[in-house]
């Protein structure tokens, strides 16, 4: 079997769920005839027809709300945001309607809202954002950020099968840059489980999304200096895998929290709090954060590079922590 890219993996995952579950359908802007701005849904119109792959007007709030309505009636809609940035236009329907239905009146809303997030492609402030934390702060939602093709497929399938609303942030930088051989058989990656990408003994780097690869590259570089990083890929942010994180911290006793989203109110803050609460006595150094700064995502290449955490940042902080 050949290699499957991240974008193909998501497409495969949705296709498989559509094939085995006729309740599943896709809706969004330019998803049918065009196959999606990033071609995630390419070929689906031809395969499943226009009742299951639906081009909509430019109405993010309408798209999500339509999905919610259909989901409450027993369907399994997968709604695309052309860029994750535009999810802001659907914020109310997601955070107030979808997220609170089960809690308030026991109505499940099994929708998936998915779209490309993240920087590194010179998209500027409105085509590069990492909006996950707006949703992580909303009880009732689940939030997923896959890094590998295997996970992208397994997680989108799990998200579609999940009985609650799942916000699925793909990373557009990874779409065609990561690929791997995938199993032929049906599989899912359960929501809420992290993965140890690289076992190590000196410092835990806890991260997700495109930053997983920055951490792995840094680990390779530091290997030569005898610094052994453990890299944890969270995969899901809500719910998230406390057990795997805490076990890792207890083993290495030093921790770096790495993400592409901006610093204040970023996921690192939550991780740091839980680590401090539950593994304080295991820490042999300060918890260190590597994140984007608290600014919008700038367009111009030198600034965007400065904005995004780099391998060199991980290497530098790891050295400092190692010497601590």
């Amino acid at each position, binding site marked *: 079997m050949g290699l499957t890219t991240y974008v193909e993996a998501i497409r495969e995952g949705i296709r498989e769920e559509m094939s085995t579950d006729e309740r599943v359908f896709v809706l969004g*802007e*330019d998803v049918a*005839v*065009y196959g999606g*701005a990033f071609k995630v849904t390419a070929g689906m119109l031809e395969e499943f027809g226009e009742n299951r792959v639906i*081009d909509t*007007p*430019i*109405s*993010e*709030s*309408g798209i999500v709300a339509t999905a919610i309505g259909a989901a409450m009636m027993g369907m399994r809609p997968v709604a695309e945001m*052309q*860029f994750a*940035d*535009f999810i*802001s*236009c659907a914020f109310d329907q997601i955070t107030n309607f979808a997220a609170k239905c089960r809690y308030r009146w026991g109505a499940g809303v099994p929708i998936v809202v998915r779209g490309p997030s993240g920087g590194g*492609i*010179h*998209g*500027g*402030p*409105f*085509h590069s954002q990492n909006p996950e934390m707006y949703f992580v702060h909303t009880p009732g939602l689940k939030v997923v950020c896959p890094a590998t093709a295997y996970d992208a497929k397994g997680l989108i399938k799990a998200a579609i099968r999940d009985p609650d609303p799942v916000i699925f942030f793909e990373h557009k930088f990874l779409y065609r840059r990561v690929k791997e051989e995938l199993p032929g058989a049906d599989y899912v990656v359960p929501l809420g489980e992290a993965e140890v990408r690289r076992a190590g003994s000196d410092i835990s780097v806890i991260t997700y999304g495109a930053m997983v690869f920055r951490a792995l590259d840094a680990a390779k570089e530091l290997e030569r200096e005898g610094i052994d990083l453990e890299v944890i890929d969270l995969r899901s942010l809500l719910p998230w895998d406390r057990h795997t994180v805490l076990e890792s911290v207890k083993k290495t006793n030093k921790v770096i929290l790495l993400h592409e989203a901006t610093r204040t109110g970023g996921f690192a803050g939550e991780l740091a709090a839980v680590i401090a609460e539950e593994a304080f006595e295991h820490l042999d150094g300060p918890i260190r954060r590597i994140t984007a*700064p*608290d*600014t*919008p995502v*700038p*367009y*111009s*290449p*030198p*600034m*965007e*590079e*400065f*904005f995004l955490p780099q391998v060199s940042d991980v290497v530098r902080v790891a050295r400092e922590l190692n010497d601590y």
Partner: protein
Amino acid sequence: MLYYMKLTRELEDRIERKLYRQGKILGGVYVGRGQEAITVGACMDLDGNDAICVSHRDMAAFLMRGVTPRQILAQYMGRKTGLTRGKDGNMHMGSLDHNLIAFISMLGDSIPIAAGVGLSYRLRGMKQVTVCFFGDGASSRGDWHEGLNMASVLKCPVVYVCNNNQYAYSTPLEQQMAVENVADRASAYGMPGDIVDGNDVVAVWQAVNRAVERARGGGGPSMVECKSFRMTGHSAHDDARYVPKELFEYWEKRDPITRLETSMRDLGDLTENKLAEMNGRVVAEVDEAVELADNDPYPDPEDCLTGVYFEG
């Protein structure tokens, strides 16, 4: 008018067909080829104090307000000398000094913003108006509807100009709305909705002027829908294979620049000499701007951190 239409076309051609392909412009590029008459006609008679809320195919508004081709190219090339100093790219730019309200990607967001701009004029008894551009696709957003209603209820001096180029990315009009014209919706908000040939710069100019006069006179907002066609893909990476070829051929024959040239010639307002001189001037201006902008500096990496809040 002809000059600004030509300058817009030349500048955008250079951006899309040359600099983008050479890799000197990164990210997305959206041009308004074939739709130049809309922006030029609508902005022609505006006062410099009137605000313009641009959308993503309104390059001419910048040129007509005196933003230089060099500044525009520097913006596209991510240089420090661009209107956003490299913070944002392509037509995501604005300048309060020029009364140009920056486009935001979230389509339709600027409709209620324009209402607020207009409201500020009315509350202070000023005679200014604002012209707000949007595409057919943007009219599906909730903010679009809220904005029109707000502008009407609060009697804001705004002229909403629709560039109906018949596609929103790959999605044709009939899949975006169940009415025939965007302007059909104007009456639902209690404002006049005019429909004009968007490739006829004179028709656009006249219709927008009527609406501007109404707004200046305290008559509240209006809408002018300009029927045109997107003669390109959605953006530079899109080959628009979903658009039937015949549509391009049909609209090619109605090119707004050729049409204006023809009618000016017929009226005896345009000699071959004058035309050649204008063509040469436009190319030379853009040549020079490319040269200058390409030598302009990039921002420093740390500039990323500046300007999030007021810095005095």
